C-alpha cells in the first residue's frame, strides 16, 4: 500500500449508516454547493479557453467535497486563508459567483476589483483574506491573524479561529515549518489544512516529501495531525470542526490532511501528461460529485428530479455569473494608481511608461 492510499485517521467513514443523523436539507445543501463549484470550474475552464480569463487559472475540479466540507466547518466569524486554487472556497464562503467570475475576467466588479485575478480572491465581508499565489505565502499571515485573535479576545466555544488551507507541496517550504512552530509556541487558534491531491504540479508527494504521511509533520510541533478522506464531505466537516473546536476552546493549533484528487492538470493549460492512465482512472472513479449524488439518491435524501433541479439551478447561476462578468466594466487606466497606498503620501510615484519621474523645469 502506498503512503497516499494509507487509511485515514479521522472522520465518520459512516458509509454503512449514511445518512445517519444528518438532516436531509444539510446534505442537499452540500450537494448544491458541490455542483455549483463543479459547474463554475467547468465554465471557468471554457472561459479561459475563450481568452475571457487570463494568467494562471487553477481549478478545484475533483476537490468539491473537500472544499464544501471544510467550509461547512468554518463559521462566519472565522477567517480563511487559502492558496491560489481558491475559486471553490470563495463560492462556498458565500462570495457572489458573479463577482468571483468578474474577478477572473479582470473586471471592476470583481471581488478584488480586477486587481488580483483567479489566484487572489479576497473579501473582508466573508472573511476570506486571500487567495495567495506564492506557495506557502499564506501561512505566516494566517498565523499572524490567529495571533491577532489572541490579542483581541479570550478562548472559548464562541471564539474566532483561523483556517489556513494549502496544497501538499507546501509542506516542504520553510514557511510551513516556521508557521507551525510559531502557532505551537504561541498556542494560536488556527487549523492548517493540507489538501493532498497527491501532486504538486507534476511531482508526487512521495518524490517531494521525506515524510509522505503529511499529517505526521505536525508531530515536530506537538500539533495533533489527522488525515481524512477528502471525498467524504461529512467526514471532512467533522474532522475540521473538531480541529477548529480545539483551536477555539483550547488554543490548540491543528494540522488536517485531506486526501483528495485533482481531476485535471495543475492549471487549465496543463494537459497532465505526466499522469498514468491508472492514476487518472482512480481520480475519476473517486469523483466526489457523482458519488455524492448517487449516495443521496440511494439513501432517498433526494429524488432524481430534485437532483436535476439543483444541477439546472447551478447551471443557471453560473450562466448569470458569466453574463454579469461579461457586462461589467473593465477598470480604466486612470485608476492605475488607486490603492497604491492606504495612507496617502507625498511624492507617490505616478509616472506611466515613458513619463519622467521628475518634472523638467526648462532654464530660461
Amino acid at each position, binding site marked *: 500500500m502506498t503512503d497516499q492510499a494509507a487509511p485515514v485517521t479521522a472522520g465518520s467513514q459512516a458509509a454503512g449508516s449514511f445518512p445517519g443523523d444528518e438532516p436531509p436539507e444539510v446534505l442537499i445543501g452540500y450537494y448544491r454547493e458541490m455542483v455549483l463549484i463543479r459547474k463554475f470550474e467547468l465554465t471557468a475552464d471554457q472561459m479561459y479557453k475563450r481568452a475571457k480569463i487570463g494568467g494562471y487559472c487553477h481549478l478545484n475540479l475533483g476537490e468539491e467535497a473537500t472544499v464544501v466540507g471544510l467550509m461547512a466547518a468554518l463559521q462566519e466569524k472565522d477567517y480563511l486563508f487559502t492558496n491560489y486554487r481558491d475559486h471553490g472556497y470563495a463560492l462556498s464562503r458565500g462570495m457572489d459567483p458573479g463577482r468571483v467570475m468578474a474577478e477572473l475576467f479582470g473586471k471592476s466588479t470583481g471581488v478584488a476589483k480586477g*486587481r488580483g485575478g483567479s489566484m487572489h480572491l479576497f473579501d473582508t465581508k466573508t472573511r476570506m483574506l486571500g487567495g495567495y499565489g506564492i506557495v506557502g505565502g499564506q501561512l505566516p499571515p494566517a498565523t499572524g491573524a490567529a495571533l491577532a485573535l489572541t490579542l483581541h479576545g479570550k478562548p472559548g466555544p464562541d471564539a474566532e479561529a483561523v483556517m489556513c488551507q494549502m496544497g501538499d507541496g507546501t509542506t516542504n517550504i520553510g514557511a510551513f515549518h516556521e508557521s507551525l512552530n510559531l502557532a505551537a509556541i504561541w498556542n494560536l487558534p488556527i487549523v492548517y489544512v493540507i489538501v493532498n491531491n497527491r501532486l504538486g504540479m507534476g511531482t508526487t508527494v512521495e518524490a517531494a516529501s521525506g515524510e509522505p504521511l503529511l499529517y505526521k509533520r505536525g508531530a515536530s510541533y506537538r500539533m495533533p495531525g489527522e488525515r481524512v478522506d477528502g471525498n467524504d464531505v461529512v467526514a471532512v466537516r467533522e474532522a475540521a470542526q473538531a480541529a477548529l473546536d480545539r483551536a477555539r476552546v483550547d488554543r490548540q493549533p491543528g494540522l488536517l490532511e485531506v486526501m483528495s484528487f485533482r481531476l485535471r492538470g495543475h492549471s487549465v493549460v496543463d494537459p497532465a501528461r505526466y499522469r498514468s492512465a491508472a492514476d487518472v482512472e482512480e481520480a475519476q472513479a473517486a469523483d466526489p460529485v457523482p458519488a455524492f449524488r448517487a449516495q443521496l439518491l440511494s439513501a432517498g435524501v433526494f429524488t432524481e428530479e430534485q437532483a436535476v433541479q439543483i444541477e439546472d439551478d447551478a447551471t443557471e447561476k453560473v450562466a448569470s455569473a458569466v453574463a454579469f462578468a461579461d457586462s461589467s466594466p473593465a477598470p480604466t487606466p486612470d485608476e492605475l494608481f488607486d490603492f497604491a497606498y492606504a495612507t496617502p503620501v507625498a511624492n507617490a510615484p505616478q509616472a506611466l511608461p515613458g513619463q519622467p519621474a521628475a518634472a523638467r523645469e526648462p532654464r530660461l
Partner: protein
Amino acid sequence: MPTTSYRQALNDTLRAELTRDENVFLLGEEIGIFEGSYKITAGLLKEFGPERVRDTPIAEEGFVGAAIGAAMLGMRPVVEIMTLNFSLVAIDQIVNHAAKIYGMFGGQTPVPMVIRFPGGGGQQLAATHSQNLEVWYAHVPGLKVVAPSTPADAKALLTAAIRDDDPVIFLENLSLYNTKGEVPDGEQIAEIGKAAVVKEGTDLTVITYSRGTVIALETARQLEDEGISVEVVDLRSLRPLDRETFCASVRKTSRAVVLEDDWLSYGIGAEISASLMEGAFDYLDAPVRRVAAAEVPLPYAKALEVAALPDASDLVRVIREVLDDTSFSR
C-alpha cells in the same frame, strides 16, 4: 531642547506609541528578555509584558509574515529584524505579501506595520552582516522606506511610520545609534515622502541619507572654512523619493554629488542621477557624481573595510573634483 541619542529616541518613541495605542505591539528576536541586540527595546518588556513585546524564535519569514496577518486584523505590529541582512530570509513576506496585499486585493485591507532594522558596515562584521540593501526595498511599490539620520527624525519618522496604514521599512544604521542630537518634546510626526534641506548652500548640493547625512554635514562645515558653500539634502524617505526637493536644490547650486552607503551599480545614486537628468539637466554645470561603496562583499580586515566604504575624505575629494571641473573660484 533636550539632547538625546538616536537609540534613546527610538526607545522613547516605541514606549510612547505602545502607551498611546493598545493595537501597537512589538515582535522580533531577542527584543524582550535580552532587551534587543542593540538595546533599542530596553525596558519595554518589563513595562508592557510579553504579549506586547514578543520575543520570537529565529524565523524571520514566519514572524514578519505573522506581523502582516496581525496587521490585516487591525493590529499595528512593529517588527524588529536584528539587521537588514537577516531581512533577506523574510523577503518573500515583505515583497510578495506586505507590499502587495493592499493593492492586489483591491484596497480591502491595509497592512499597517513597521519593519525596523539597522543597515551599515564599518564594524568589522564582514560580508554577510554589513550590507546596505535598502535599495531592494526602495524599488518596490507598496512599501514605504524611511531612513532617519538624526535622533529627532528617528522619533518623528518612527511615529509617522507606526501611525501609517502601509507597510513601512524603517532603516536604522549601526553607526548612528550612539549619535546625539536635540529632540523636541511632545508628539512629533514627520511627513513620509519628504526630503529636507538640512544645510543651505549655494555652490554644490550633496544628496544623501542616514549615516551619509552626518558625514555630509561635517564635510560641509569643514568646507565652509574654505569659502565653499555646500547644501545638504537629507532624503529621509527613499520611497517615495522627494525628487522635487533635490532637483530644486541642484537648480540653485548647479552641481550635485550623491553620497550613498550602498554599492555603486543600480544604487540610490543611480536613481538620483537619473532624476536630476529629468528635473535639473538644464541647470547642471558638471556631471552628477556618486560616492558609493566599492562593489565587493565587504571584507573583514580593517584596512580593506575602510577602503571599501565611502567616508568623509572620499566625499571631500569628489566635491573638490566637481568644483575644479567647473572653474569654481573660491
